[in-house]
């Protein structure tokens, strides 16, 4: 494996540690990679450019997620510069999620369903 390929792999591993703040708020350990937010990782002699999209245009956590990605990838110590570029088109769709994210969403739905079911039962 070339050094570039190793570093790219390391970037993807690091990105998998950056949690999506909304999913984390719901108690789910789902990363930006699991959600399919990362559109590309490009390395050159100077550094790395990472493309990112969000589940909705105007996501209020855009700055925060970008900051965490930059800090995390800079922390690898490989790159002089890390640039995270928001890319809004073609836009995020649920098909971009992997199994980790899908399972987390599914379990969240089931939990909510049980919650509402018990609330209905308690009131009848």
């Amino acid at each position, binding site marked *: 494996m070339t050094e570039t390929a190793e570093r790219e792999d390391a970037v993807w591993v690091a990105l998998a540690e950056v949690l999506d703040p909304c999913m984390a708020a719901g108690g789910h350990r789902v990363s930006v990679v699991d959600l399919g937010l990362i559109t590309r990782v490009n390395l050159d002699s100077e550094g790395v450019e990472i493309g990112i999209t969000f589940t909705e245009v105007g996501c209020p956590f855009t700055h925060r997620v970008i900051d965490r990605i930059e800090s995390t990838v800079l922390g690898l110590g490989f790159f002089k510069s890390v640039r995270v*570029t*928001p890319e809004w088109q073609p836009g995020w769709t649920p098909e971009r999620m992997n199994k980790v994210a899908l399972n987390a969403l599914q379990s969240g739905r089931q939990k909510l369903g049980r919650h509402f079911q018990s609330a209905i039962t308690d009131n009848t």
Partner: protein
Amino acid sequence: MSKPFIIDGVCHPYNFAEENLNGRFGKIFNDVMFSFHPLVNPQGAALSRPEWEHDWQPAEFIETMLLESVTDICCVHSTPIYDAYHDGLVTNEKGAQLKADYPDRVIWYGCVDLFEDGRNIRQALSQFVDQGADGIKLYPSRYVDGFTESWRMDSREIAFPVFEFARENGIKNIAVHKALPIGPISSEGMLVDDISAAANCFPELNFQIVHAGFMFVDETAMLLRNHPNIYCTMEASMLFTILDPPHQAQLFSEFFAAGGFERVIYASAAVNPHPQVVIEAMLAFQMPEDSPFQLDESSRGLIMGGNLARLHGIDIEQRAALLRQDEFERARGDGLRAPWSTVRGIRTDD
């Protein structure tokens, strides 16, 4: 449909120049702002990144706003975002100059940084009152060396002295950045609950929640229901008319149900979006057929200018008659300039 009298509730002569960026946070801010630019501009007319990284000067800003769009009055907000931009992004100097040069066309909200010490704050406030500020713009959070600092609108020590100053000096409008975190800051400062006490204790002041709709929509609606002096100024959140119309309809429904058409204020966030694009989107925007809150000439007129005119004591008929005789109206006689032609070099003096 006739055009309403349009007051753009928040627009800015930004300084996006690369030399103005303050560290990594400034770079992130610019990258994100520029990423939206192509989505909220006329197709094929968006600025290139080098064109966009520009320190907007007052004269080119006002000509862009008034000669490239059918905006009647610009409400210019200065901003104290020093954690991302060396000059805060939109200086008070630019706002003061615009107000001085175009008093009938500009409403100006001077900004004050409440993280400064009290004496500097008082000085800044006095200065921009002398310069003709019509309102005060506040930012409740900042990011410093990995930490977020926030203050609350219900703070008797930090915020209330500003409101008392406003009351004593005839300023009736306070706009506060909320609901949309700027930079990697935590969200406490973006909560809206603290505005309730401010609105209660200062009933003679109007409090505008700038960026209303991005977060805490239920809480914002609750504030509208409880306080007649709280308003939703939908800077950037009104871009959902372009980016996500069903979402815009949902936000409007919440706010109209809670406060009526009288409490929502149109704001384009120009000159990142082109002002005419947002105007056209809002003029064309329709609520779903089954909504009880249909937009007609009257309600659209309130949102796009009437409400802010009322807050600033502007008689729309009188002001419109005055503006019909000014240089901008004369220049518009030949039609609007092409989008971004002003910043690309077309000027009145040419």
